[in-house]
């Protein structure tokens, strides 16, 4: 087969697979089985299309092929069930008549996508399993692509996905969008999965690359899909706003010598204005829906303060401190507190920042975190307390795992000694 035809089929698959699997899952009530059926349809396409050409409506073709398989399967199952239960032929026929209307499959794929994402992000699964299954079934990624993105062996991901599908089946997780009480918690699980995928791409925790932009793109795409399908949920727009604005800086974070550039030192001309515009629009949407105090929306609002400033000097630090105050109440954590301290220092001077970050020295979670002494050193140096600043820089240098960072910290410590 020509590789050109193969690539064209892959492209169709990436576009169609989620709605295909979603539609089938509604029919067979089993996400794992739905994926198998969809894969069968893909195999059929790989056999036919190179000769017949890609059909005009490839999605409908794939759905029809998968439906045929599904009907066969349902029939066989019903026959089997009927035999086991000792039912008469008439009853089997009755079941046939009340079988789901297969034509409904083509309608309203949006709802199927939503059901699918709530299933792949179900709390019965571990966070790693949610991520792998979501990327596989909604992102259309192969196990190999997921494995490469997370730098783990393909067998690990394959196994994780197989187990996840089994868990869903055994727990009888219904294929539905949750209503009522647990809806909010379930939605936040979905958003957390998307954010996790994004962060893994944005600040690659392993490997040589500083970031893995393809993973960021996958996360943003999922977020955008969700925002279109749940337009009334402010936090969905808040998350999308946050991801769009963070993505806008993806290409401004590395110096010519390959060192990470901090936000305030970045060349803002390299920020992606299209993504910033999209991000600001999504933020406005979140806020207009009454979501100004959702955790993602608040983080997006902070990111937006930076995005709106054409130079670091123009940053509205006072507003950022207020937003961090809100965030510290919504999702208190030592890292949020550290950032709040930095914002206070920028807005009201180093003493104000020091007052916030000093208590963090007693936090067990911060004991090994090099940024705490690095930030304190900065405040102390500005306050003229050079000796304390130098000690903190040396401590930070001892804690960081990044060689370049360590060199920078030691250099700064040396310069304080001379000064």
């Amino acid at each position, binding site marked *: 087969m020509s590789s050109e035809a193969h*690539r*064209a089929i*892959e*492209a*169709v698959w*990436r*576009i169609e697979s989620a709605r295909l699997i979603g539609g089938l899952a509604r029919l067979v009530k089993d996400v794992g089985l739905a994926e198998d059926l969809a894969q069968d349809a893909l195999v059929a396409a790989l056999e036919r299309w190179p000769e017949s050409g*890609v059909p*005009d409506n*490839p999605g409908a073709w794939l759905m029809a092929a998968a439906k045929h398989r599904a009907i066969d399967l349902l029939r066989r199952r019903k026959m089997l069930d009927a035999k086991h239960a000792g039912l008469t032929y008439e009853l089997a026929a009755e079941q046939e008549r009340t079988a789901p209307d297969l034509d409904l499959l083509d309608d309203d794929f*949006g709802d199927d*996508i939503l059901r699918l994402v709530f299933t792949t992000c179900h709390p019965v699964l571990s966070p790693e399993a949610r991520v792998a299954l979501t990327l596989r079934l909604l992102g259309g990624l192969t196990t190999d692509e997921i494995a490469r993105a997370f730098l783990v062996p393909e067998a690990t991901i394959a196994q994780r996905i197989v187990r996840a599908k089994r868990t869903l089946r055994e727990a009888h997780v219904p294929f539905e969008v949750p209503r009522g009480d647990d809806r909010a918690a379930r939605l936040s699980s979905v958003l957390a999965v998307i954010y996790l995928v994004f962060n893994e791409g944005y600040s690659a925790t392993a490997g040589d*690359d*500083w*970031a893995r*932009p*393809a993973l960021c*793109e996958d996360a*943003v*795409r*999922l*977020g*955008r*899909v969700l925002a*279109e*399908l749940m337009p009334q949920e402010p936090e969905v727009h808040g998350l999308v706003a946050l991801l769009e604005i963070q993505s806008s800086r*993806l*290409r*401004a*974070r*590395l*110096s*010519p*010598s*390959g060192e990470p550039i901090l936000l305030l030192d970045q060349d803002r001309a*390299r920020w992606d204005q*299209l993504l910033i515009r*999209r991000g600001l629009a999504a933020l406005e949407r979140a806020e207009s829906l009454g979501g100004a105090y959702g955790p993602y929306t608040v983080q997006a609002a902070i990111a937006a303060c930076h995005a709106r400033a054409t130079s670091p000097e123009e940053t509205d630090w006072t507003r950022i401190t207020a937003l961090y105050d809100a965030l510290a109440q919504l999702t208190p954590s030592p890292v949020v507190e550290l950032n709040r301290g930095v914002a206070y220092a920028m807005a009201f001077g180093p003493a104000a920042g020091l007052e916030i970050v000093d208590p963090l020295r007693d936090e067990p979670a911060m004991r090994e975190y090099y940024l705490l002494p690095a930030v304190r050193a900065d405040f102390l140096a500005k306050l003229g307390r050079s000796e304390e600043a130098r000690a903190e820089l040396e401590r930070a240098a001892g804690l960081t795992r990044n060689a370049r960072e360590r060199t920078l910290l030691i250099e700064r410590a040396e310069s304080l000694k001379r000064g």
Partner: protein
Amino acid sequence: MRFLSIYKTAERNAPPTQEEMDRMGRYIEESMKAGELVSTEGCLPSALGARIRLAKGKVTVTDGPFTEAKEVVGGFAILNAASKEEAVELVRRFLTFTGEGECELRQLYEAPVNSPA
């Protein structure tokens, strides 16, 4: 990857019909729901536009309409796609919604993420 798709079509004197508008609206809604369409805009008649050219140090401005052209730019879209093939498929679908015409598909430059530009 990000792509620019420029749509060119024969210019008509009539504004789009309600049915055409609805079809386009449906396409945009579906593409947005699929997360592929990043940005899109449609053009007003070329009579409201102009062509500006610099040649031999001289700038000439030619006001629309561009009657001599068989096809004029009707709009553009910025698409996100994992491959050129995916972008081609998206544009193919777009054309089935709009009808006759041509799209010029171009991959957009994006500064590298992991190595300095």
